[in-house]
């Protein structure tokens, strides 16, 4: 059986730039692709008329808002993945002293 008592390989924390890059870049890329595909079929002005017809939204603003909303969602997902992949030892620490 596997010996669970030997210290397991525990990767040291990665540099901040690597962590941020691995979360923000793939999500940025996905958001860009999603924005392009989405607006190939939907006109932001039509979307405005269905939702907030009284707001003075332009197409450019519609594209921008949608892109950042997509990015927020994809970045949140990437950050979640990062949290789940961190090794247990990062979490299993004694409670901080008072």
């Amino acid at each position, binding site marked *: 059986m596997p010996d669970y008592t030997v210290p397991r390989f525990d990767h040291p924390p990665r540099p901040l730039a690597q962590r941020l890059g691995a979360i923000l870049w793939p999500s940025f890329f996905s958001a860009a692709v999603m924005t392009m595909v989405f607006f190939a079929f939907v006109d932001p002005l039509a979307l405005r008329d269905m939702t907030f017809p009284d707001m003075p939204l332009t197409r450019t603003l519609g594209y921008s808002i949608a892109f950042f909303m997509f990015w927020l969602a994809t970045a949140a997902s990437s950050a979640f993945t990062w949290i789940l992949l961190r090794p*247990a030892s990062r979490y299993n620490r004694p409670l901080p002293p008072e």
Partner: protein
Amino acid sequence: MTKKIPLDLLDDGSALYVSERKIYPRDVDGRFQTWRKIAVVVLLGMFYVFPWLRWDGRQAVLFDLPARKFYVFGLNFWPQDFVFLAMLLVIAGFALFFFTALAGRLWCGYACPQTVWTEVFLWMEQWTEGDRNARMKLDAGPWNRNKLLRKGSKHALWLVFALWTGFTFVGFFTPITDLAARAPLLGSAPGWGNWELFWVLFYALATWGNAGFLREQVCKYMCPYARFQSAMFDRNTLIIAYDPMRGEPRGPRKRGMKGAAERRGLLDAKTAYDYVLRAAHYVTGSVVAPGTTAVTDTGIKVEPLPRFAPEELGDCIDCTICVQVCPTGIDIRNGLQYECIACGACIDACDDVMDKMGYPRGLIRYSTQNAIDGKPTRVLRPRVFVYGLLLLALCAAWAWGVGNRSPLIAEVLRDRNALYRETGDGRIENGYTLKLVNKDVKAQQFRLTLQAPAGITLVGGGSSGGTQVIDAPAEQVLNLPLTLSSPKGVRGKQEIVFKVQRIDGAAQADVPSTFFGPM
């Protein structure tokens, strides 16, 4: 306790990849397990019974997605009530903070669907395959008639239960009596729609997979809450904790010895935690917990423990039953771990052992870190009050908001095509669409009046100078075209107000808009 318990073989230890070790939780009875069983019955009872209850001639709890309406007993929710759903999520968040800061992961141990369904699936596993040892033996043994029969009946039970779960789930979205009447093979034509069938099967598959196979892996690898526990815990939070000052050094002994507190007193914290660390690295017990704890992961070199004389031993007899009963397979003696779902199985198991040894209960107990370390505990502390007050305020605001929702929504949109048009006799007309939502469960009448300057009147408003009575059926959205007309000579932009009032006076709405004449 001297006989070694045979362990499962899953990996020869040579590969870097370690497949997940199957955990066979040992059945245990006790205070916490009784509470958990009550929680299972109440929560699953709610899930399976609620869709069958009736209220005012309709299903009591129904999330009618095609009609975009949610019914929860006496309340009905519209898409416009989205803010209450958002608030409910905020309330859920604060409730989680509050209860976690106060009493640890109550959610995980008692209320999480993952835990609750896993518990029921485990019961079925015990009925068909037997207790922990029998299950391990069955898995290790060759496939024969007995194994086939036991495994087969387990999966048959699981499958029926999972299908019923999937059916109930869909019953929250489609009237369940109708769904039952159309059940495939049993009910009448036309049977289930493709999407109904898909969601019943999908939810059944998810239940079967999560509660039957993934189990504690969902908590360990998929749940974000576990990983944020340290942000909500402090040394005054109630947690499941082992008392190493009393328990260490651990080891088997003959019966009839006095408890450690009486016999040799409690150890100091430094020595006790050092013994824990060393014991975790040189496991002497018969069962090893999968090692994901800080104590074993850090890779610190420690010396093995010396042999202790029986009189020096603490109260822990190292029977490892606390490890065997653990549904996530950890060793609670290694300290607080994010894998711990606070089910209290180890407490019940250890209390049982302490009773048999004649030692006082509570070597593993539901307590705070401060209390374990012999320091004063303050359960009612500022953060608990802050979370509690916020939670209370939010709940009150939500209840008030839901209770005081207007049963009427009125919106007016100007026609897009033209700013104004001139009729043959020189009057100026503007077109509008009134969107009127009667949220009440009964049909209602509404009076529409216009408040406008410069002789602007509602066309078709009758002789009274612009009043219309609108009949709105129960829970309907009406789109009514309206025309306003003004005498010749009205110019530019005029501010107007549409006033909608329910005939019985229970609701009203003022909708401002504009009227345009030639510039």
